[in-house]
Each structure stands twice: as structure tokens, then as C-alpha cells.
């Protein structure tokens, strides 16, 4: 590696380390703050990319829940349309998913991942990685 390239790597690593120190958005238990509660309005749902995970957060029966927003069919956005009667319909091919479980109603073999979630300090926290060792 050239001197210039190695200096660039060192600088990038230092910048990353500073960013991690300055970010209070990760808890030791692996939860990450991804949004404030107000982002649920006005639709009762929103989706957001966080570290290569696209997460669909929504309110159902007074509870806040999170599913993967990536349709396992071809990768479409599950939460593009507002949830209707407890069901999300993917924009691209109309694959339907039960909001409470993530179960696909169009194809029995598909399911959306549910994310563990908590609400704290006016924020929505999601656990992206549950199996860090694997």
C-alpha cells in the first residue's frame, strides 16, 4: 500500500472512531435509535434504511412494531402503501403480508423478518443484529 493510501485509511478509521464516539444512538444491548416517535405521523408508519437494513416501523393496536421492508420476492418496498386492514401490500407485485406476523399471504414460503423494538426517550430503537456471533 502506498504511503498516501495508508494515510487515507488511517484518516478514515479515525473519522469512523470519532463518529462512533459521538453517536449516542447505539446501546450496549445492540439496540440502535433509528427515528423519533414523531416520524410515525401522519401515516402511522414509515420505512428507513439503516446500515443496509430497510426497516418498516408501524403502529398496530396501540403497539409499535417493525418488520423488514424488503419483500423477499424481488426486493420491493413492502411499506410503500399505507397498511390496510392489518395487511401490507408490496408496491411492485402486490405481494401481501400480515402486519402482525410478517407472514406472506401470497406465497406460503415467504415471510418478513420481525425486528425487536423498544421506545425510549422519545425515540424508536431497533435491534438490527440478534446473532452477532454467527
Amino acid at each position, binding site marked *: 500500500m502506498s504511503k498516501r493510501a495508508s494515510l487515507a485509511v488511517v484518516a478514515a478509521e479515525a473519522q469512523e472512531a470519532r463518529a462512533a464516539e459521538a453517536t449516542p444512538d447505539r446501546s450496549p444491548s445492540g439496540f440502535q435509535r433509528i427515528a423519533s416517535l414523531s416520524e410515525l405521523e401522519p401515516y402511522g408508519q*414509515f*420505512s428507513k434504511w439503516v446500515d443496509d437494513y430497510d426497516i418498516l416501523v408501524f403502529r398496530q393496536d396501540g403497539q409499535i412494531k417493525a418488520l423488514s421492508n424488503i419483500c423477499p*420476492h424481488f426486493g*420491493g418496498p413492502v411499506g410503500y*402503501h399505507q397498511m390496510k386492514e392489518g395487511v401490507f401490500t408490496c408496491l*411492485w*407485485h*402486490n405481494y401481501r403480508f400480515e402486519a402482525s406476523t410478517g407472514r406472506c399471504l401470497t406465497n406460503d414460503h415467504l415471510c418478513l423478518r420481525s425486528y425487536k423494538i423498544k421506545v425510549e426517550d422519545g425515540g424508536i430503537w431497533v435491534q438490527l443484529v440478534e*446473532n452477532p456471533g454467527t
Partner: protein
Amino acid sequence: MATLIAKCSMEMDCPKEVVVWNYYDHEHVVGTHYKYYSEFRILAERDDWCLVERFYKLPIINLRASSLGFMYMESPHLIRSIQHGKLGLVLDQEIQLDDLGPDRCRVTCTYRMDLPGPKRLLQPLFERVITRWFHDTWVEDAPMRVRRWKVWKLGFRDFRGLDYVNQKTAKTAGAGEHRPHPVRLPVPKTPESLPGSGYKRPFDESVEVGY
């Protein structure tokens, strides 16, 4: 007889292979383009050719129409689609695909239609309708193509998703970054759909939260 011509061209932040996938992913027209297409049927399909029937609404003149369309690849850079409308009109469309680097391409569509009547009167209307149609469907397709390319580079597999998401693990750094998108035709269909049964728009209106 007048030959009407319209040409539209736009650039796209994905390789041309993703655009080919998008054109051959027939099932998306009543999903992604649900405001224009009401119904779609695949009558026959093999490798890079297909015969399809579409029901849609044309912009500007607000005309409900349907057509039988035959689509095939002239070459890896050129898709040709010939659509025969129920009124006897034939729309000949050429879709030219040019690479502009590993993550960018240009799509140029040329539309031709023979119509009885004076060209100077028909050409402006033809251009307006086609340009609006191209623009509106482009606006709906563009985020689809860009997103498809994004999830593909993250390691997405059709009918499976992203392994690190499903297995609740961390994503391996750099995984999938240099993964080319294949042109594998025909694009797999929803197993639950019966061949020839068609696809219908599930709703007329929706509250769109967005991507």
C-alpha cells in the same frame, strides 16, 4: 398515411441488465404502474420473447385501451416491442440500452405508428401522449430499478431475500458489491399464479407513504 415518430431518452443509475429485468418482469405493471394498468395477461413466453395482453389508460386523451404485444430482444442492447391495439393500430417500439459505466446506462425509446390522416395534425398529439406516458412510467420504474440494483448488490436472492436480514446477523463487509445482475429470461413468475390467468390491479386508490 402518416408515420408518427416519438423518441424519448433518459439515463438511469443502474446497469442495463436491471432495465432488461424490469421490462421482462411483466407482473410489476399492475403493481408499480397500478394507476395506469388495470390488467395484464401473459399469453405465451419463452426465453427472451413473450406475447402479452395489457389493459390500460392513456394519458392526456384519457382513453381506456388494450393491446396485444409481442416483445423480444434483437440484441443485448435492443428490445423490440410490437403492440397491436384493438382498433387496428400498431405501435412499434424500440428500446435501445447503452452502458454508461458499471452503474449507469441510457435508455432510448423510439415509438412509431402508422395512422391514416395528415401528419402535421397527428404528430404533435402523438408526441405529447407518448412523451407523457414515457415520463410517467419512467418516474415509477426509476426507483424500482435503483432499489433492485441496491438490494442485488447487498446479496439479494429472488424468493429468499437477504440472508443477513433473515438470519439476524451482521452483514459481511463488502459482500455482493461486485455482483453483476444477470439477464435470466424469462423472469420467474409468482408460483401461485396460474399461467394465462392474468394479473389485476388490487385497488384503484391507495395512501402512498413512499419508498
